[in-house]
Protein backbone atom coordinates (compact mmCIF):
# COMPACT_ATOMS: atom_id res chain seq x y z
CA UNK A 1 0.00 0.00 0.00
CA UNK A 2 1.36 3.39 -0.95
CA UNK A 3 2.31 5.86 1.75
CA UNK A 4 0.10 8.91 1.27
CA UNK A 5 0.85 10.85 4.43
CA UNK A 6 0.34 14.62 4.11
CA UNK A 7 4.10 15.28 4.39
CA UNK A 8 4.90 12.90 1.56
CA UNK A 9 2.07 14.20 -0.57
CA UNK A 10 3.25 17.78 -0.03
CA UNK A 11 6.80 16.82 -0.95
CA UNK A 12 5.60 15.01 -4.06
CA UNK A 13 3.35 17.86 -5.11
CA UNK A 14 5.93 20.53 -4.60
CA UNK A 15 6.97 22.01 -7.90
CA UNK A 16 10.59 21.41 -8.88
CA UNK A 17 12.87 24.42 -9.12
CA UNK A 18 12.63 24.12 -12.84
CA UNK A 19 10.26 22.12 -14.89
CA UNK A 20 12.26 20.88 -17.88
CA UNK A 21 10.26 20.71 -21.02
CA UNK A 22 7.56 23.06 -19.80
CA UNK A 23 9.21 26.17 -18.47
CA UNK A 24 10.88 28.42 -20.97
CA UNK A 25 13.00 31.37 -20.10
CA UNK A 26 11.58 34.86 -20.45
CA UNK A 27 13.34 37.48 -22.56
CA UNK A 28 14.38 39.22 -19.34
CA UNK A 29 16.03 36.05 -18.01
CA UNK A 30 17.75 35.39 -21.33
CA UNK A 31 19.01 38.97 -21.40
CA UNK A 32 20.50 38.69 -17.90
CA UNK A 33 22.03 35.29 -18.68
CA UNK A 34 23.56 36.74 -21.84
CA UNK A 35 24.97 39.72 -19.95
CA UNK A 36 26.48 37.43 -17.33
CA UNK A 37 27.99 35.12 -19.95
CA UNK A 38 29.37 38.04 -21.96
CA UNK A 39 31.00 39.51 -18.84
CA UNK A 40 32.91 36.28 -18.22
CA UNK A 41 33.71 35.84 -21.93
CA UNK A 42 35.06 39.40 -21.85
CA UNK A 43 37.35 38.48 -18.97
CA UNK A 44 38.71 35.47 -20.88
CA UNK A 45 39.25 37.55 -24.02
CA UNK A 46 41.10 40.24 -22.05
CA UNK A 47 43.22 37.55 -20.35
CA UNK A 48 44.37 36.36 -23.80
CA UNK A 49 45.26 39.87 -25.00
CA UNK A 50 48.83 40.30 -23.61
CA UNK A 51 50.53 38.59 -26.58
CA UNK A 52 48.68 40.88 -28.99
CA UNK A 53 49.11 44.28 -27.36
CA UNK A 54 52.05 46.48 -26.43
CA UNK A 55 54.25 45.20 -23.57
CA UNK A 56 53.07 48.03 -21.31
CA UNK A 57 49.38 47.22 -21.87
CA UNK A 58 50.17 43.53 -21.50
CA UNK A 59 51.78 44.17 -18.13
CA UNK A 60 48.72 46.14 -17.02
CA UNK A 61 46.46 43.24 -17.97
CA UNK A 62 48.76 40.77 -16.23
CA UNK A 63 48.63 42.86 -13.07
CA UNK A 64 44.84 43.00 -13.34
CA UNK A 65 44.54 39.23 -12.98
CA UNK A 66 47.41 38.81 -10.51
CA UNK A 67 45.17 38.87 -7.46
CA UNK A 68 43.11 35.89 -8.64
CA UNK A 69 45.69 33.73 -10.40
CA UNK A 70 49.28 32.70 -9.61
CA UNK A 71 50.20 33.25 -13.29
CA UNK A 72 53.10 30.79 -13.12
CA UNK A 73 54.70 30.90 -16.59
CA UNK A 74 55.22 27.14 -16.64
CA UNK A 75 51.52 26.59 -15.89
CA UNK A 76 50.05 29.16 -18.25
CA UNK A 77 49.36 29.18 -21.97
CA UNK A 78 51.89 31.01 -24.08
CA UNK A 79 51.23 32.57 -27.45
CA UNK A 80 54.52 33.19 -29.18
CA UNK A 81 56.82 33.98 -26.29
CA UNK A 82 54.26 35.83 -24.21
CA UNK A 83 52.08 34.16 -21.63
CA UNK A 84 48.40 34.92 -21.17
CA UNK A 85 47.12 36.40 -17.90
CA UNK A 86 45.47 33.25 -16.53
CA UNK A 87 46.89 29.81 -15.76
CA UNK A 88 45.62 26.63 -17.45
CA UNK A 89 43.20 25.78 -14.64
CA UNK A 90 41.80 29.31 -14.43
CA UNK A 91 41.26 29.38 -18.20
CA UNK A 92 39.28 26.15 -17.83
CA UNK A 93 37.18 27.60 -15.00
CA UNK A 94 36.52 30.96 -16.66
CA UNK A 95 35.77 29.47 -20.08
CA UNK A 96 33.41 26.88 -18.60
CA UNK A 97 31.22 29.43 -16.81
CA UNK A 98 29.73 30.90 -20.04
CA UNK A 99 29.66 27.36 -21.46
CA UNK A 100 27.47 26.26 -18.55
CA UNK A 101 25.22 29.27 -19.10
CA UNK A 102 24.97 28.37 -22.78
CA UNK A 103 24.14 24.75 -21.90
CA UNK A 104 21.78 25.74 -19.11
CA UNK A 105 18.80 24.23 -20.87
CA UNK A 106 20.55 20.85 -21.02
CA UNK A 107 22.19 20.95 -17.60
CA UNK A 108 18.97 21.80 -15.78
CA UNK A 109 17.76 18.26 -16.42
CA UNK A 110 19.85 17.39 -13.36
CA UNK A 111 18.33 20.19 -11.30
CA UNK A 112 16.47 17.68 -9.13
CA UNK A 113 19.74 16.13 -7.92
CA UNK A 114 21.73 19.37 -7.80
CA UNK A 115 18.99 21.17 -5.87
CA UNK A 116 18.84 18.39 -3.28
CA UNK A 117 22.58 17.81 -3.01
CA UNK A 118 24.43 21.10 -3.61
CA UNK A 119 27.31 20.20 -1.28
CA UNK A 120 27.90 16.88 -3.00
CA UNK A 121 27.72 18.52 -6.41
CA UNK A 122 30.25 21.20 -5.52
CA UNK A 123 32.43 18.66 -3.72
CA UNK A 124 32.39 16.31 -6.69
CA UNK A 125 33.33 19.14 -9.06
CA UNK A 126 36.27 20.14 -6.85
CA UNK A 127 37.54 16.58 -6.48
CA UNK A 128 39.20 16.20 -9.92
CA UNK A 129 41.13 19.45 -9.33
CA UNK A 130 42.14 18.32 -5.86
CA UNK A 131 43.28 14.92 -7.07
CA UNK A 132 45.14 16.39 -10.05
CA UNK A 133 46.94 18.89 -7.82
CA UNK A 134 47.42 16.63 -4.79
CA UNK A 135 48.73 13.66 -6.75
CA UNK A 136 51.29 15.96 -8.40
CA UNK A 137 52.42 17.33 -5.05
CA UNK A 138 52.76 13.83 -3.57
CA UNK A 139 54.62 12.67 -6.67
CA UNK A 140 52.36 9.89 -7.93
CA UNK A 141 51.14 11.82 -10.95
CA UNK A 142 52.50 14.68 -13.02
CA UNK A 143 49.67 16.98 -14.00
CA UNK A 144 49.71 18.37 -17.52
CA UNK A 145 48.25 21.46 -19.18
CA UNK A 146 45.39 19.26 -20.42
CA UNK A 147 44.65 17.78 -17.00
CA UNK A 148 44.71 21.23 -15.41
CA UNK A 149 42.46 22.67 -18.11
CA UNK A 150 39.98 19.77 -17.96
CA UNK A 151 39.75 19.66 -14.16
CA UNK A 152 39.27 23.44 -14.08
CA UNK A 153 36.53 23.09 -16.68
CA UNK A 154 34.67 20.54 -14.55
CA UNK A 155 34.49 22.96 -11.63
CA UNK A 156 33.71 25.86 -13.97
CA UNK A 157 30.70 24.08 -15.46
CA UNK A 158 29.21 23.41 -12.01
CA UNK A 159 29.99 26.93 -10.78
CA UNK A 160 28.53 28.35 -13.98
CA UNK A 161 25.38 26.28 -13.54
CA UNK A 162 24.88 27.62 -10.00
CA UNK A 163 25.41 31.12 -11.35
CA UNK A 164 22.97 30.58 -14.21
CA UNK A 165 20.19 29.20 -11.99
CA UNK A 166 20.66 32.15 -9.62
CA UNK A 167 20.47 34.64 -12.50
CA UNK A 168 17.34 32.92 -13.83
CA UNK A 169 15.86 33.00 -10.33
CA UNK A 170 16.75 36.65 -9.73
CA UNK A 171 15.49 37.78 -13.13
CA UNK A 172 12.15 36.02 -13.10
CA UNK A 173 9.24 38.41 -13.42
CA UNK A 174 7.14 37.14 -10.52
CA UNK A 175 7.64 34.78 -7.60
CA UNK A 176 5.49 32.41 -5.68
CA UNK A 177 5.65 31.47 -2.01
CA UNK A 178 8.17 28.67 -2.60
CA UNK A 179 10.42 30.85 -4.68
CA UNK A 180 9.90 28.61 -7.68
CA UNK A 181 10.11 29.75 -11.24
CA UNK A 182 6.59 30.15 -12.54
CA UNK A 183 5.63 28.85 -15.94
CA UNK A 184 6.65 31.19 -18.70
CA UNK A 185 5.12 31.44 -22.12
CA UNK A 186 7.06 29.33 -24.56
CA UNK A 187 9.39 31.23 -26.86
CA UNK A 188 9.43 30.37 -30.52
Amino acid at each position, binding site marked *: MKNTTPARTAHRDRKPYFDPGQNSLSYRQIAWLSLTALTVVGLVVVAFLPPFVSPETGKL*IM*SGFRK*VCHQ*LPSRSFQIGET*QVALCHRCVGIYAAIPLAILLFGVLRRWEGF*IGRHPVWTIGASLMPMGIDWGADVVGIWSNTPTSRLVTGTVFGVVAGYFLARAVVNAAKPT*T*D*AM*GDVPAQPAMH
Partner: protein
Amino acid sequence: MPEKQQSIILGSAVVAILSTSYLGLINCLCCAGVLVGAMVAVWHYTSTNSLTMKTGDGAVLGLTVAIIGSLISAVLDYVLIKMGIRADQAIMQMILDTMGDQMPPESYDQMIEQMEQQVTIASFAVQAVFGVVIAGVFGAIGGAIGASIFKKGDSGLPAA
Protein backbone atom coordinates in the same frame (compact mmCIF):
# COMPACT_ATOMS: atom_id res chain seq x y z
CA MET B 1 12.38 40.99 3.96
CA PRO B 2 14.69 41.50 6.98
CA GLU B 3 17.56 43.96 6.76
CA LYS B 4 20.81 42.64 5.32
CA GLN B 5 23.30 45.25 6.55
CA GLN B 6 24.91 43.08 9.22
CA SER B 7 25.33 40.14 6.84
CA ILE B 8 26.78 42.44 4.18
CA ILE B 9 29.24 43.95 6.66
CA LEU B 10 30.32 40.53 7.90
CA GLY B 11 30.67 39.04 4.41
CA SER B 12 32.50 42.10 3.09
CA ALA B 13 34.93 41.96 6.01
CA VAL B 14 35.66 38.29 5.29
CA VAL B 15 36.20 38.99 1.58
CA ALA B 16 38.41 42.02 2.37
CA ILE B 17 40.56 40.15 4.88
CA LEU B 18 40.92 37.04 2.70
CA SER B 19 41.83 39.14 -0.35
CA THR B 20 44.44 41.39 1.21
CA SER B 21 48.21 40.99 1.10
CA TYR B 22 49.50 37.47 1.85
CA LEU B 23 46.03 36.11 2.63
CA GLY B 24 45.02 37.08 -0.90
CA LEU B 25 46.92 34.00 -2.08
CA ILE B 26 43.80 31.99 -1.16
CA ASN B 27 42.06 33.60 -4.15
CA CYS B 28 44.40 31.67 -6.43
CA LEU B 29 42.28 28.65 -5.40
CA CYS B 30 39.20 29.42 -7.51
CA CYS B 31 38.66 32.77 -5.75
CA ALA B 32 38.13 30.83 -2.52
CA GLY B 33 38.32 33.95 -0.35
CA VAL B 34 35.48 35.59 -2.27
CA LEU B 35 33.41 32.39 -2.36
CA VAL B 36 33.82 31.94 1.41
CA GLY B 37 32.91 35.58 2.15
CA ALA B 38 29.75 35.37 0.05
CA MET B 39 28.75 32.09 1.66
CA VAL B 40 29.39 33.52 5.14
CA ALA B 41 27.06 36.44 4.36
CA VAL B 42 24.30 34.09 3.21
CA TRP B 43 24.85 31.78 6.19
CA HIS B 44 24.65 34.73 8.60
CA TYR B 45 21.51 36.08 6.97
CA THR B 46 19.66 32.76 6.89
CA SER B 47 20.75 31.82 10.43
CA THR B 48 19.93 35.18 12.00
CA ASN B 49 16.51 35.40 10.40
CA SER B 50 15.75 31.66 10.25
CA LEU B 51 14.75 31.70 6.63
CA THR B 52 15.67 30.21 3.31
CA MET B 53 16.98 32.55 0.65
CA LYS B 54 16.18 32.10 -3.00
CA THR B 55 19.31 31.45 -5.03
CA GLY B 56 18.78 34.73 -6.89
CA ASP B 57 18.74 36.70 -3.64
CA GLY B 58 21.76 34.76 -2.42
CA ALA B 59 23.64 35.65 -5.60
CA VAL B 60 22.78 39.33 -5.23
CA LEU B 61 23.94 39.28 -1.60
CA GLY B 62 27.15 37.50 -2.64
CA LEU B 63 27.71 39.99 -5.46
CA THR B 64 27.28 42.90 -3.06
CA VAL B 65 29.71 41.62 -0.43
CA ALA B 66 32.24 40.65 -3.11
CA ILE B 67 32.24 44.13 -4.65
CA ILE B 68 32.45 45.94 -1.30
CA GLY B 69 35.04 43.50 0.06
CA SER B 70 37.29 43.69 -2.98
CA LEU B 71 37.16 47.50 -2.95
CA ILE B 72 38.17 47.54 0.73
CA SER B 73 40.89 45.01 -0.06
CA ALA B 74 42.22 47.22 -2.87
CA VAL B 75 42.51 50.19 -0.48
CA LEU B 76 44.18 48.03 2.18
CA ASP B 77 46.60 46.61 -0.38
CA TYR B 78 47.52 50.09 -1.55
CA VAL B 79 48.19 51.24 2.01
CA LEU B 80 50.33 48.16 2.69
CA ILE B 81 52.32 48.62 -0.52
CA LYS B 82 52.95 52.25 0.38
CA MET B 83 54.19 50.99 3.76
CA GLY B 84 56.63 48.77 1.89
CA ILE B 85 54.84 45.45 2.39
CA ARG B 86 54.90 43.77 -1.06
CA ALA B 87 53.16 40.44 -0.61
CA ASP B 88 53.16 39.81 -4.38
CA GLN B 89 56.95 40.07 -4.52
CA ALA B 90 57.39 37.82 -1.52
CA ILE B 91 55.06 35.18 -2.96
CA MET B 92 56.86 35.23 -6.33
CA GLN B 93 60.21 34.98 -4.57
CA MET B 94 58.93 31.96 -2.67
CA ILE B 95 57.80 30.36 -5.94
CA LEU B 96 61.18 31.04 -7.52
CA ASP B 97 62.99 29.59 -4.49
CA THR B 98 60.94 26.40 -4.50
CA MET B 99 60.28 25.85 -8.21
CA GLY B 100 62.83 28.06 -9.92
CA ASP B 101 65.28 25.28 -10.74
CA GLN B 102 62.55 23.35 -12.61
CA MET B 103 61.47 26.38 -14.66
CA PRO B 104 62.59 27.07 -18.22
CA PRO B 105 65.02 30.03 -18.27
CA GLU B 106 62.57 32.27 -20.16
CA SER B 107 59.85 31.59 -17.56
CA TYR B 108 62.29 32.36 -14.78
CA ASP B 109 63.18 35.64 -16.45
CA GLN B 110 59.50 36.49 -16.90
CA MET B 111 58.88 36.05 -13.20
CA ILE B 112 61.89 38.19 -12.30
CA GLU B 113 60.52 40.85 -14.64
CA GLN B 114 57.10 40.63 -12.98
CA MET B 115 58.70 40.97 -9.55
CA GLU B 116 60.66 44.03 -10.53
CA GLN B 117 57.60 45.70 -12.01
CA GLN B 118 56.79 48.91 -10.16
CA VAL B 119 53.31 49.46 -8.77
CA THR B 120 51.84 52.51 -10.44
CA ILE B 121 48.48 54.16 -9.91
CA ALA B 122 47.41 52.89 -13.35
CA SER B 123 48.39 49.29 -12.65
CA PHE B 124 46.78 49.47 -9.25
CA ALA B 125 43.53 50.91 -10.66
CA VAL B 126 43.44 48.21 -13.37
CA GLN B 127 44.03 45.56 -10.72
CA ALA B 128 41.20 46.98 -8.61
CA VAL B 129 38.76 47.11 -11.55
CA PHE B 130 39.55 43.55 -12.64
CA GLY B 131 39.43 42.45 -9.02
CA VAL B 132 35.94 43.90 -8.57
CA VAL B 133 34.57 42.34 -11.78
CA ILE B 134 36.06 38.89 -11.09
CA ALA B 135 35.09 39.04 -7.41
CA GLY B 136 31.56 40.01 -8.48
CA VAL B 137 31.23 36.90 -10.64
CA PHE B 138 32.58 34.56 -7.97
CA GLY B 139 30.69 36.38 -5.21
CA ALA B 140 27.44 35.73 -7.07
CA ILE B 141 28.43 32.08 -7.47
CA GLY B 142 29.30 31.84 -3.76
CA GLY B 143 26.02 33.48 -2.77
CA ALA B 144 24.04 31.14 -5.03
CA ILE B 145 25.83 28.09 -3.61
CA GLY B 146 25.32 29.42 -0.08
CA ALA B 147 21.60 29.90 -0.66
CA SER B 148 21.37 26.30 -1.88
CA ILE B 149 23.22 24.96 1.16
CA PHE B 150 22.02 27.07 4.10
CA LYS B 151 18.30 26.59 4.26
CA LYS B 152 16.43 27.55 7.41
CA GLY B 153 12.69 27.82 7.61
CA ASP B 154 10.57 29.42 4.94
CA SER B 155 11.47 31.39 1.86
CA GLY B 156 12.41 34.98 2.62
CA LEU B 157 9.75 36.42 0.39
CA PRO B 158 6.14 36.65 1.42
CA ALA B 159 3.57 34.79 -0.63
CA ALA B 160 2.61 36.54 -3.85
